[in-house]
Structure formats: structure tokens, C-alpha cells
């Protein structure tokens, strides 16, 4: 072995050793979260309070998160933040563990309506993080009198030649397609899925379909003028609007008349989490009144935390952060699919993608 490679080897092994050495010295919390979904100052505050280090990893979609957990992530992350319709499937697969409510006194701060959600009775496995909506974002210059309808994407007569992107998460995309067909957003019968899939395939073959894009990047595309209609989340829309008001001046967020998604993102602890105690502390920390408000004030999502109410910014009390009464009636949870139904849906969506 030449001298150079020897030194190189020595350096490499030392750094590997150092890497593992540092790991043992300080406790770490592995947070697996959506992109652009956490105030860095909250992380710093948590790190200081408990003298730990927080390692953040990000995902852009729930399928991506689920796949990572399946591929060994269940024993590597301490906290995950899935949306409502993935909660039952995570519980069923045994990828998450029960919460120890005794260790999370701040659970009492949670609003009544989020305390016993349909997707996780009694909050046995999950604690709410934020809630929000998935709507349509469009360019008001391009579409000065756009209909408040999914047809802006799915109807070639309404939007013949401006590029649009559809969300990459199959269930949300098919939900929107159901809406465009005049069915409820949370359609879940085989027949309506079939029709929606057919519409998706036709839509995909249109010239101005620019691709499947996840919620956060869809906003970047819109801001840059790459697309003129897309699907994204209300809080992300407000957040990026705050960051770059000029680029978002001509972009509007809408909850289409046919209905759209309302979701609750929940904190959960993977079954093999390396630091479950710290994870419980983290959940409790987030559910604190002031921290909860800080989080919502940072990323513009409505808070499921009743105690945080007094500290919330004005922007959070009006649409689109807080949908109107009338809009609330149109919002639905994405259905949680299980067993055979889930497999059927996966096949249908795979077919849409492969075409």
C-alpha cells in the first residue's frame, strides 16, 4: 500500500471512529418531518432545554415517508409526522408504538375535536401537530376570472393551454379528480375511483400537463411561472408568500367548490425508535401552549392546540389558514384505506402512473 493510501485509510477510519464516538457522547433526537415544517428556533430551544441534538430528515410525500419507515427507518427515527390517513396503516403494520400519555401532560392542551380523532381513537398512538387544507393554487394573471373549481386543471375546455401540475400523492390526486367529476372529494367506491383514474389518464396525456409534483415544490413552480395551476397546502402557500411577496402577488389559494382535503398531521413514535423517552419529551414540548403558537406563527398552519390560541398571530385566524364556516363544510378527510381496498387503489394508481 502506498504511503498516500495509508494516510487516507487512517484518516477515514479515524473519522469513522470519531463519528461513532460523538454519537455516544450526546443524545440525539431523530426527527423525520415534512420539508419546511419546523421553526429552527423551536429546535434550538428544545436542544438547549434538554441538552441534546436534534437531527432532522425530511420527506416530500407520505408514500416516501412510509417507504423509508418500511426500509428500516422504523428503528432509526424517533418522531414522524404523518397525516391522518396514514395513521391507521402505520398502526396496523406495527411501524409505530403506543404513546405513554403519562409522559405527555400537555396533551390536555389539545382542542376537544382533535382529542379523539376517527383515525386514532383516544389518541392512543398519535398527538396532533398542525392541521390544514390541500387546495388549488393558481395564477390570477393567467386566469383573471377562474372558476372556483378543479376543472381549472381537469377540464381541457377551461384550461386549454396553460401548464398545470397535479399532486404526486395518489389519494389526494384521485380525490381532486373525483371532485372534478362532481363526486365528493373523499370518494372511495371502486366505480368512482375507476372514473377518476380514467380522467387522470386523459389529463396526463394532455399537452399542458407538466407532471406530478408534491405540495411544497408545486409552489416553487408556480412562483417561477413554470406552471400556472397546481395543488398545495394553505400554510405553505402563506409561508412562501411571506418569504417572497412579489412572486406570490399573482397567486391565489382556493378551496374548490367541489370539495377538498382537510388533514391533521400527527406526531408518532416509530416502533423501534432509538430514544422513545426523548421522543415523548419532544411531543410534550411541541404541545406546550407557547411553543405550539410559535410553530403555527412560523409556518402558518392552524393549531390543534387550544391553549395556544391567545398567542396566535392574526393571520392564522382568517382564511386560508383558518377556513371559513362555509368552506369547512366542503372539506373532507382523505379516506384511510386498508387491506384489499388499499391494494386495489395502489394498482389503480400504479396504472395511472405507468400509462
Amino acid at each position, binding site marked *: 500500500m502506498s504511503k498516500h493510501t495509508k494516510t487516507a485509510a487512517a484518516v477515514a477510519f479515524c473519522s469513522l471512529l470519531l463519528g461513532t464516538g460523538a454519537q455516544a457522547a450526546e443524545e440525539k433526537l431523530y426527527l423525520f418531518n415534512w420539508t419546511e415544517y419546523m421553526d429552527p428556533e423551536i429546535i434550538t430551544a428544545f436542544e438547549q432545554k434538554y441538552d441534546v441534538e436534534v437531527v432532522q430528515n425530511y420527506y416530500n410525500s407520505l408514500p416516501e415517508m412510509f417507504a423509508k419507515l418500511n*426500509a428500516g427507518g422504523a428503528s432509526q427515527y424517533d418522531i414522524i409526522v404523518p397525516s391522518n390517513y396514514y395513521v391507521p396503516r402505520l398502526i396496523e403494520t406495527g411501524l409505530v408504538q403506543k404513546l405513554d400519555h403519562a409522559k405527555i401532560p400537555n396533551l390536555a392542551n389539545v382542542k376537544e375535536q382533535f382529542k379523539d380523532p376517527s383515525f386514532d381513537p383516544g389518541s392512543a398512538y398519535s398527538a396532533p401537530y398542525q392541521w390544514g387544507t390541500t387546495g388549488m393554487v393558481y395564477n390570477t394573471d393567467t386566469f383573471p376570472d377562474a372558476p372556483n373549481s378543479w376543472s381549472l386543471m381537469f377540464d381541457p375546455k377551461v384550461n386549454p393551454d396553460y401548464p398545470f401540475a397535479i399532486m404526486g400523492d395518489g389519494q389526494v390526486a384521485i380525490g381532486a379528480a373525483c371532485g372534478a367529476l362532481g363526486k365528493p372529494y373523499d370518494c372511495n367506491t371502486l366505480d368512482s375511483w375507476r372514473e377518476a383514474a380514467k380522467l387522470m389518464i386523459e389529463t396526463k396525456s394532455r399537452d399542458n400537463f407538466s407532471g406530478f409534483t408534491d405540495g411544497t415544490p408545486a409552489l416553487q413552480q408556480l412562483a417561477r411561472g413554470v406552471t400556472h395551476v397546481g395543488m398545495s397546502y394553505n400554510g405553505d402557500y402563506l409561508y412562501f408568500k411571506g418569504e417572497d411577496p412579489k412572486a406570490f402577488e399573482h397567486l391565489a389559494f382556493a378551496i374548490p367548490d367541489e370539495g377538498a382535503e382537510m388533514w391533521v398531521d400527527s406526531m408518532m413514535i416509530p416502533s423501534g425508535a432509538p430514544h422513545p423517552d426523548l421522543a415523548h419529551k419532544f411531543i410534550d414540548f411541541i404541545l406546550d401552549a407557547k411553543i405550539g403558537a410559535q410553530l403555527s406563527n412560523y409556518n402558518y398552519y392552524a393549531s390543534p392546540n387550544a391553549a395556544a390560541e391567545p398567542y396566535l398571530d392574526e393571520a392564522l385566524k382568517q382564511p386560508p389558514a383558518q377556513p371559513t364556516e362555509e368552506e369547512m363544510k366542503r372539506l373532507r378527510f382523505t379516506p384511510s384505506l386498508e387491506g384489499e381496498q388499499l391494494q386495489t387503489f395502489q394498482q389503480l394508481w400504479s396504472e395511472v402512473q405507468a400509462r
Partner: protein
Amino acid sequence: MSTNNIAVMGRSQGMVREARHLLFTVAPGALWIVIFLVLPSLYLMAVAFMSNGPYGLPQMPLSLNSFKQLAGVGFLGWSPGNLYTLLRSLWQTLVATGLVVLVAYPLAYYITICRAKWRPIMLLLVVVPSWTNQVIRTFGWMNLLAPGTPLSNAAEVLGFIPPNMGLYPSNFAVTLGLVYNFLPFMVLPLYAAFEKLDTAQVEAAQDLYARPARAFWHAVFPQTLPGLLAGIVLVAIPAFGMYVIPELLGGGKAMMLGNLVATQFSGGSNWPLGAAGAILMLIATFIGLFAMRRIGKRLGGGEEVVI
């Protein structure tokens, strides 16, 4: 008698030593590849014959369902999506390989007729872009082909694309990305072939045939065929299994087999189906290699033709 015995013993001792030597040098690497590649591949193949669990993970009992699904037969009856993807992969591979040949052939020839001093530098210039990461190269094309960029505007004016759209994402962008990615893989073996060209034969052919095209066809082309075949193997096989380029430049319209396989794992939906797709890719790869080898052997190039 006794000396004979000793010689035999000596020889067998030598053979033992040789065998030990072989074991000592070859075993670590061979074991490494067997444990960390052959076993995993076999495991993946086994997964293809398992049934899909409700949440996408393989489970018992064994079944052929994944292959049925790959062929398009599911709960919903037969549907052509996967077949489309397969055909699209084949078509993209074919077009990209063809274009790469068309560009690389004159390029390699040009390098051989340049002054010897410049040749290494010219080859290096062709190869260097492929040293940068694939993701970065593809990202460069995303920047170039996005809507509103000069290239997209020009294409729009010329009527190649509908208004307001970019050249990316599209099938065209994927083809372009593939050609860009694999060009050096074709130039290098072709250059090697051109360098070995028997000029006497070429000159004889030039005398024999009046038209340069015929001279080329009879004297030059056959001589470069081994290099061409090697290049085709180097381009077509990885192009067929490409993942990054369709994912970034295709925008969901241009899914190829590699993406179909990957989404079954990274979308967390169906490991057995993904594994079945992987087997299909392996079969295609080995058929390709085998065919090239056969053709190469018939042409007399022998072993060196393949890579």
C-alpha cells in the same frame, strides 16, 4: 521409484500451495460479491415469487401474482399501463442508442484524424462531463429546458411545443438526457476501433469502389463494428434501466421500467411487483449481453468485444 514419488508429492504440494494462493487472493473479493450482491439479488428474485402484503411488503405464501400484475392483470382486469411503460423503455433505449451512434461515430473518427498530440485531450474533453454526478448533469438540462428559457422559447416560436410549455418535462427531454449521459460511453470504444483501422484496406477499397459511401461500407464500417457493438452494450443496457433521467426530466409522463420498479419500493406500495420488474430488467440485460457476445464472436472479435 522413490524419486518419482517425491516428484509427485512435490507436485501435489505445489498444487496445494497454488490452490491456497488462489483461495487467499481471490476468496475475499469473490465472497464479498457473493455475500453483498449475489445473495441480495437472489433474495430480490425470491421476493418476486412472494405475495404482496396489505402494506406493500412481501409475505408468504408464494405466488405468481406479481408477474401477473406486471403483465397488467390485476383486480381490475387487464390494463395496459405496465406494457406501455415497457414499450416506452424499449423505444427510448432504441432512439437514444441510435442517436448516440449517429453523434459518436463521426466524433470518434474526427478524433482519430486529428494530430496525435491533441487526441488524449480531445478524448478527455468528451469524457469529463460524465465524471460529474448524474444528478447534476440532469439538473443542468432541467435549467436549460425549463419554460421561458431561450431554448424553450425558440422551440415554441418554431412550433415544436405548444405555447407556455417548456421543453421539459417531456419524453423529448428524457431522450436528450439519455443521449447526453451516454455519449462518452460510445465515443471511447469507437475511437479505439478507428485507431486500429487498417488503412491499407481502406485505400484498396477506395481504389476498388468509385463512390466513397461504398468504400466506407465495405472497408471502414466492418472494421469498426466490434467497437460499435461494445458501445451499444455500454449504452443500451444502462439506458434501459435508467432511473434518474426519466424521474427528473420526464415529469411523470415518461416513466420507464426503472421508475416503475423503483416506485414499488420508494412509494411503498408493492415490493413483489417491483422485484418482478427487476427480474424483467435482468433478463433483458442478459439477453442483450448474450446477443452481443454471439454477434461479436461471429465477427471474430472474440472476448474483447464485450466491454
